[in-house]
């Protein structure tokens, strides 16, 4: 129950309509999209409408040491928005305006509550694109996406969120606000705070405004799907494509378990004994796209791939339906779907996929692996039942081993989903004691009272 005094203070800062304490609404903010996480009721949910309100809120919370949990759409996959210690969920749903599209400078300025697709709809009118495209583009907000440094399918050619954030306005734990970065292409004034807050998962400051970099929309694209009977052939193809100096916009992979599940669900004609399917898209200027598509085709065929090329948009959509069906198909097999994010250097993809297969067998689990072969960001997806405690124990062991495997192959715990609660305990495996100490020092410096999303990351 929220203390009456605190409630009244919040109402003074934010206005009555922006402070919610009914149990029904608190329940709705006790979870996010992450599977297998504990739920926790916050004491209140607030919906600030401006930076000023946010600053007042932070100052107040800091004085009284009340935890704040920033939340966009709550579609992250690392427990990043779960209010673990109770406290106040800060929903950015009302700060959802696109403030400016500056086509001449190739920038746009948005409030954190803007949904990624809404930004792209607004800039497409100018022939521009904001490239980062996590699977949740139609639901995730820019604020959340920046805080998690979202990845997406275009990572290899276009990079990820951090490559597109030029500037931020951030409200600090003590109630001050700062502006970092800006609209200039180059900016080396002070430490790179823009990069520090990007991917900070709401633990170092609350993002209240975002300036993004835009690029011109590509005029042409070609998609194809290649089916391989062996993982090695697929692996050689991936290496071969990049070796031929073609950087595809998208290069996705699906393993045998995923292929079988997708085929059972969508019946698109995928061969059940194929060890891997690659989905490739090249984009750019028409003549270049034609040339690159030819090269990619050649590499696929040289490595025994059976290739289907899309001749128009409808055919393209049909090919991509297979990749889009991956998560829906997998999630219907069993009630709980644990989507992992272990990432390795591209050359280690076949090794990682094989290792996941071994781990699945060892712990008697069904794990389908699909993901971004272009940049090594794989999604081993464990299909289980949260109510089967014995199975969940095996899942925990499997997850540990998957992380261990990724790190041993020179990779990382999380390519794009973030650390949140879910992976906090593994940080030392990757960063070492000294690395984790540095994280802690930064956190202590910027949020000494530990009010910003406590219990996440560090």
């Amino acid at each position, binding site marked *: 129950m929220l203390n009456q005094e605190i409630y009244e203070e919040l109402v003074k800062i934010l206005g009555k309509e922006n402070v919610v304490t009914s149990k029904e609404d608190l329940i709705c903010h006790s979870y996010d*999209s992450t599977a297998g996480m504990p739920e926790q009721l916050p004491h209140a949910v607030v919906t600030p409408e401006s930076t000023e309100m946010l600053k007042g809120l932070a100052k107040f919370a800091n004085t009284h040491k009340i935890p704040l949990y920033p939340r966009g759409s709550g579609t992250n996959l690392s427990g990043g928005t779960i209010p673990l210690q109770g406290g106040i969920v800060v929903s950015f749903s009302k700060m959802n305006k696109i403030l400016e599209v500056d086509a001449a400078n190739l920038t746009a300025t948005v409030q954190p509550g803007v949904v990624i697709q809404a930004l792209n709809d607004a800039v497409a009118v100018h022939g521009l694109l904001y490239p980062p495209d996590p699977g949740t583009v139609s639901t995730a907000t820019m604020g959340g996406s920046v805080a998690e440094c979202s990845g997406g399918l275009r990572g290899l050619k276009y990079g990820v969120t951090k490559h597109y954030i030029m500037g931020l306005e951030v409200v600090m734990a003590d109630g001050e606000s700062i502006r970092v970065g800006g609209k200039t292409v180059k900016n080396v004034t002070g430490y790179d705070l823009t990069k520090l807050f990007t991917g900070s998962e709401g633990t170092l400051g609350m993002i209240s405004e975002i300036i993004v970099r835009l690029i011109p929309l590509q005029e042409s694209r070609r998609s194809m799907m290649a089916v391989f009977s062996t993982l090695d052939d697929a692996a050689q193809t991936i290496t071969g494509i990049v070796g031929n100096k073609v950087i595809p916009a998208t290069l996705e992979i699906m393993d045998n378990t995923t292929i079988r599940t997708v085929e059972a669900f969508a019946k698109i004609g995928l061969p059940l004994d194929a060890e891997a399917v690659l989905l490739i898209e090249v984009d750019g200027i028409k003549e270049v796209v034609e040339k690159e598509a030819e090269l990619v085709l050649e590499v696929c065929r040289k490595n025994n791939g059976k290739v289907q090329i899309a001749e128009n948009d409808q055919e393209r959509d049909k090919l991509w339906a297979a990749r889009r069906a991956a998560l829906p198909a997998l999630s219907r097999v069993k009630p709980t779907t644990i989507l992992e994010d272990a990432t390795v250097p591209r050359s280690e993809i076949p090794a990682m996929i094989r290792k996941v297969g071994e781990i699945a067998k060892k712990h008697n689990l069904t794990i389908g692996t699909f993901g971004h072969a272009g940049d090594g960001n794989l999604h081993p997806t464990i299909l289980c039942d949260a109510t089967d405690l014995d199975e969940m124990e095996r899942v925990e062991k499997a997850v540990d081993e998957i992380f261990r495997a990724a790190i041993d192959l020179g990779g990382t715990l999380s390519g794009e989903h973030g650390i949140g609660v879910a992976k906090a305990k593994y940080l030392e495996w990757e960063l070492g004691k000294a690395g984790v100490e540095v994280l802690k020092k930064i956190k202590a410096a910027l949020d000494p009272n530990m009010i910003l999303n406590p219990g996440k990351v560090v």
Partner: protein
Amino acid sequence: MDKYGNLALVQDEIKKCIKCGNCQAVCPVFGETRTESGVARGKIRLANAILKNEVEINPEIGKRLDLCLACGACSSNCPSGVKYQEIILAARDEIAKNSKPSLKKLVSEPWKSPIVYKIMGNRKLLHFFLKSAGKASKPFFKGPVMRHLPLALSELTSYRSLPVIADKPFRDRYQEYQQNIPELKGNVVFYSGCAIDFAYPQIGMSLIKVLNKRGYKVLYPMEQGCCGIALRYMGDIELVRKMAKDNIVAMEKALKEEQADCIVMACATCTSSWVHDYPELLKDEPEWMKRAEQLKDKIVEFTCFISRESEKETKSGKKPGSEKGKALKVTYHDSCHMKRHLGIFKEPRELLSSMPGVEYVEMPKADACCGCGGTFSVKFPEVAAGILGKKLANIESTKADMVVTGCPGCLMQIKGGLDKAGSSVQAKHIAELLAEQEGL
């Protein structure tokens, strides 16, 4: 105990929700409120909260679970295939069963009072009430539209005008009308539903003319009553079961007596009620369920009927006539029941594309809900107005002269909104347009 009545029985569906939040991308209510309880993910969690006794059933949770159009957009975007409709109905059933009646509730939600239920559930009483209201209100409203209702009812017309109750309902007009069938091919039974009967009788008249032209005599059994879908969504199953059985008896009798082999319907909502809800509601009474299933097979939605007849004509070598003259630009709104519940969306478009004198243009997000949702548009006028506003903007963007649809509920909402906004765009039921364009 059947699934409808007991929330526990939809546990498996609740479990299927992986909380991905994909529903947020398409939910029209979430588009307005941007609150977690405004979208399927939150509502499923609330249904679970009732189940797990985390909350007591109270007006707060009732309000949040009412804040849903049951438009089905969420299900169509759900990777796990959660049958959300079953969950929300079961939850509302539980709330209806366990809510204490109170004066406060009666005043704020008068449509949930026992008197209203009694009237709605009694065919003769309902028809009497509506006919009387039609006659009594005549002196107060000029023309076919109510733009401003007085005092306490003013919210009903705050963002869209409502049709007046027709001074002569369809059932009376039917009896007075002399059908004109050049070459009789057969008989069809017509089930109209309340909206066509009492608010838009001209839709029924258009349907008769169009079917007559194609060689069919239309029989309208007077014993038909309200399909009961409004009551179903408010959680009163027993009453709806009774209404379903009465309707089944009426239709069976008509089909037999008139030697008709199908029942034509021109209201997507009623059609969905017969096709989906009736068999489900009567699941525990196998004999009745069988009868509902058998009737289900005889039901043909209006545009599908026309489409079938057109195919027959084309096969027999006849070409559809075409009128010269300025093409009327027409766009089409997919009602939620029509597209998502019945899967009908090709036939209306084919019909419009081949209609004489009509140029068909597709609107953006043609299948986005109009915000009517039956009583939703009355309970939550602000949210409904926002959703309607988006639909009207999409209609205007096509620069069409007219928007047509296959559901009188949607028609009421869209037409009312266009009228209130002072738009020159017309709104009609597709049967009306067809009759006009065929010069009937």
